[in-house]
């Protein structure tokens, strides 16, 4: 065959064929793997919500346990009003794209796009586990390099922290990234976000000073990440405190 490989026609033709073939392959792979990827993200979120209450579970079983233990989920506005139609029980399936479902609230997206915290949505998950009721609230903030987030479980009194999990996108390993470790998360247990009905939040302070029941040790060398955790808890938990201290959920 006498095709001139260096002619413009050949080069253009080759490029077109290559792009079409590569595009088709990538599109096919992405479509084939998408269900598995989505399930991973979803199961991880369920796992984190349940882990906040102290439950130990694998990601594979998260979906079943979520259905079993999360008796109720709802969305609040900043002032503690329940968003109309957002109250759901474990009977309601989680449907993709249902904006009224607390599970589908994209905290990271809202944190980035809605500048005023008063305009954001605040999902709340009511978890029944070992004869106790927990209120699990997601928090979302900014670490040193990128996003940090977590789930905080409150006891039935709506004030005492029953457990907390934190994770991060790309904090420094060994420093800020330690927020995802147990030694950082465990001291939150038993701390209180209010005193005598006044909201205090939780302070993440530099190691050293005496701790009270509203503060935990931060990470030496991970100051910005600690500050980010401190800020996201203080900013977010006030909403849940106001709601839980006035709502009928905690009254009966």
């Amino acid at each position, binding site marked *: 065959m006498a095709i001139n*490989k*260096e002619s413009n026609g*050949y*080069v253009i033709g*080759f*490029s077109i064929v*290559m*792009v079409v073939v*590569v595009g088709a*392959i*990538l599109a096919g*792979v*992405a479509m084939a*793997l998408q269900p*598995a*990827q989505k399930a*991973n*993200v979803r199961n*991880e979120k369920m796992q984190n919500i349940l882990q906040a209450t102290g439950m130990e579970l694998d*990601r594979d079983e998260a979906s079943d346990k979520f259905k079993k233990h999360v008796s109720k989920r709802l969305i609040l506005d900043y002032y503690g009003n329940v968003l109309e139609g957002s109250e759901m029980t474990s009977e309601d399936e989680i449907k993709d794209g249902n904006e009224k479902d607390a599970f589908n609230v994209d905290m990271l997206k809202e944190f980035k796009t809605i500048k005023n915290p008063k305009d954001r949505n605040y999902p709340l998950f009511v978890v029944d586990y070992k004869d106790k009721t927990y209120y699990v609230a997601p928090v979302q903030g900014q670490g040193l390099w990128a996003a940090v987030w977590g789930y905080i479980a409150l006891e039935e009194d709506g004030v005492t922290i029953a457990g907390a999990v934190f994770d991060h*996108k*790309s904090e*420094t*390993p*060994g*420093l800020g990234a330690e927020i995802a470790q*147990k*030694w950082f998360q465990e001291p939150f247990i038993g701390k209180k976000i209010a005193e005598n009905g006044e909201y205090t939040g939780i302070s993440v302070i530099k190691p050293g000073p005496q701790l009270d029941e509203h503060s935990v040790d931060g990470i030496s*060398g991970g100051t910005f990440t600690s500050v980010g955790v401190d800020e996201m808890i203080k900013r977010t938990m006030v909403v849940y405190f106001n709601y839980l201290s006035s709502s009928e959920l905690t009254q009966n």
Partner: protein
Amino acid sequence: MSTETVEKEKEPLFSKKNKALITDPLSDNNPITIQVLGICSALAVTVKMNNALVMSLSVLAVLILGNLVVSLMRNVIPGRIRIIVQLVVVASLVIIVDQVLKAYVYDVSKQLSVFVGLIITNCIIMGRLEAFALGNKPWPSILDGIGNGLGYGLLLVVIAFFKELFGSGTLMGIEIFGSNGAEPTGLYAIGYENDGLMLLPPSSLVIVGIYIWIQRSRKKHLIETH
């Protein structure tokens, strides 16, 4: 092509020359310590052995498949746009690897984060495509990919071994020096502390440096004379 003209007989699959394609990059022609390619990921994803292993496997897969694809297409790729073609091949393979990791080993893919995507810029891959696959038949190209991928993986695992051991006191997540929790046990009980510097990229550079030093003092012919 020289190989075809000299030997009309079919070359055995693992001839001496083909074996050298695999063994050379492990020591005398190691992509990291001798060619000094692919350094950036060697510095960054070696905090844990697990991550280093998955990263090595990913690079190995991309390298083998990339070499194979480019070698198969070597006679139809127009010379003027060959770099672009190589880039497209590598980029697509990396995206596929990234997607597969996200679907099947989600935890690891989260920890490797951007570095999977950055395999595209790993100089080893483009280097092997341009220097080897473009001028060789598919089978030697596959072997060359295996060799260089393993050579890269070897270094990554060696670096990660020291970084994880002295930085976190663990290997593959298993506690070696005892537990460093609220009640320290093992070495921690007598005052041992993990070395935080070992978790950061500069320590990899030191380890690579020491590796190169040992390698060249054992094999004098590797020392550059000029």
